């Protein structure tokens, strides 16, 4: 596999680390546990700002500031964080679009910056906000190009195409020019294009952005299936907490270029001490509801908002409210991910004092 041993000698050295249980893997490929290896990854952008006529100030922006994690084969990981946190920059380094400023990076044992083209055959990328499909041509033409560009064996191409067309409901769209597709249809078309060559890992950057509820559900359902049946590793960045909840067992939170949290979604709520909200509609206007473990955050006529810790089950609270108050209707609102992260970030920088810590506690477990 490795034609040029000199180019990635250090990769081979690292591979030897956890050899156990890795039978039949290709030479030069990391053992089952670590398909994506990221160690102390950094990306620094020099920014020149005009401060006056011909005068410029040079500044450095650390978009990714020492991130380390590994992703195993077949895992499905959500990568979340507020705008400008460094999510996309990380994905771009993982796919070889950007060259890292520092740190070590391996995907399937390949250094993306050195061997972008070789890596490209083994990964699939979906950019939620821009299409890779050919705007003026029927959808099928874009797939034919993939077929030839990736040198997919004919039988395999036909098989994959049939399966993807069926799963994503594209059969009526294949001969429609891409410019005439709706956003949801185009997204499904893009996802199919990214999977025709059987990539081992699929990166999705905001795959459900701007989609309606039905399209979102369809995309999620499909991703779950690809992950379960083909064992494709999936890494997705999103703003939509529901994407994560429905798809990923593991979530990584990044903010200001640092990994804030890496673990299960439930743990994130604990770590962020986030609160869910119980919205109750009473029969009439009443004084604030008093139930232990909750606090009333807002009252508006007969409607009241009760905050309670996310780690706590809503069921006993609902039972209690229903038993003690004249309840008409209720709903539970999940905490907004940005709030959770903002809160977590504020607390972390409080703990560190000046925020100069090397790594946040609990960020790497």
């Amino acid at each position: 596999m490795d034609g040029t041993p000199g180019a990635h000698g250090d990769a081979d050295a690292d591979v030897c680390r956890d050899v156990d249980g890795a039978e039949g893997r290709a030479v030069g490929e990391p053992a089952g546990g670590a398909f994506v290896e990221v160690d102390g990854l950094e990306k620094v952008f020099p920014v020149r700002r005009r401060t006056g006529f011909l005068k410029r100030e040079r500044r450095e922006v650390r978009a990714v500031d020492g991130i380390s994690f590994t992703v195993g084969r077949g895992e499905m990981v959500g990568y979340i964080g507020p705008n400008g946190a460094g999510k996309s920059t990380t994905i771009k380094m993982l796919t070889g679009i950007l060259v890292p400023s520092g740190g070590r990076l391996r995907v399937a044992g390949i250094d993306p910056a050195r061997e972008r083209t070789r890596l490209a055959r083994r990964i699939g990328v979906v950019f939620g906000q821009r299409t890779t499909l050919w705007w003026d041509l029927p959808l099928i033409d874009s797939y034919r190009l993939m077929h030839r560009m990736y040198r997919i064996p004919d039988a395999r191409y036909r098989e994959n195409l049939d399966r993807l067309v069926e799963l994503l409901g594209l059969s009526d769209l294949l001969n429609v020019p891409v410019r005439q597709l709706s956003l949801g249809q185009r997204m499904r078309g893009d996802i199919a294009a990214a999977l025709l060559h059987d990539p081992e890992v699929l990166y999705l950057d905001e795959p459900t952005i701007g989609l309606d509820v039905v399209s979102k559900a369809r995309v999620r359902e499909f991703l779950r299936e690809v992950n379960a049946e083909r064992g494709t590793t999936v890494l997705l960045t999103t703003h939509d907490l529901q994407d994560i909840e429905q798809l990923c067992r593991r979530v990584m939170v990044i903010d200001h270029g640092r990994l804030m949290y890496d673990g299960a979604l439930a743990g994130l709520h604990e770590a962020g001490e986030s609160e869910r909200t119980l919205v109750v509609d009473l029969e009439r206007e009443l004084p604030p509801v008093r139930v232990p473990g909750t606090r009333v955050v807002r009252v508006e006529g007969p409607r009241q908002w009760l905050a309670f810790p996310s780690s706590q089950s809503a069921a006993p609270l609902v039972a209690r409210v229903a038993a003690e108050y004249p309840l008409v209707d209720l709903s539970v609102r999940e905490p907004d991910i940005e709030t959770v992260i903002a809160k977590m970030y504020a607390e972390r920088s409080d703990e560190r004092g000046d925020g100069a810590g090397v790594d946040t506690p609990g960020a790497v477990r």
Partner: protein
Amino acid sequence: MTGRPVAECAAAARPWTPEPAPGGSRLTESLRTYRLVAGMWIRSTMAYRTSFALTVVGNLLITGLDFATILLMFAQVDSLGGWSLPEVALLYGVSATAFGVADLVMGSMDVLGGRMRDGSFDTLLVRPAPVLAQVAADHFALRRLGRITQGALVLGWGLVSVDADWSPVKVLLLPVAVLSGAALFGALFVAGASFQFVAQDAAEVQNAFTYGGTTLLQYPPSVFGRDLVRSVTCLVPLAFVNWVPVSYVLDRPLPLGLPAWTAAVSPVVAGVCCALAGLAWRTALRSYRSTGS
């Protein structure tokens, strides 16, 4: 980080090995990519047939008018800087044909800056194909055949009507000059594209060298100031596209008093320029910063 649940059916998705590009030298791979992408653009253009037909006609008209300006000049004067009309036609023909070839092959590289601004350049980088070939074939437009046709017609007319003392070397020199010229202009396009990584709205600077350069070369070197001729010979060696070889063919003194053998070095000059442009491209690609999202 171990002990995390990993799906059991790992590696099931890899029954075929996508590894080696068969017979894949970089050049054949680039040509293959170019053919694929250019083919897609031709089909895209054909989605708007009327528009295509109109641009072809428009293109022929505009390039046709280009030589008409020179004809108009000769309606007033008998020679331009000591060069007769057929001689200028020869100059024009070599330059326009060479530029036309380069323009057809990679003339849309000025859209690269736009691609970087809107982020669609990223999508080219995740393909298992040489980026330069993808960028060169970007917006491939058959309408550019118009410029080659027009240049070749003028060249043909110049050849039959010029009064030259032909020898085998001179006959061989002209096609060599056209091909080297195309490579030289191609190198300029690539260099310009590399510069767009630094300044993404620099496409016009590139056009100044390419389109501006070809216009410059349509006139004899003797009508320009010595400094300009010197910089076009030494800095951006456009003089080797037509001034030097055509001067030799016509038994005229070479620009800047260059020795006669330099008429044959056009391919070398073009080769060096291509190598430099390739280097610039590689450096630029590594410094690519992408957009925010």
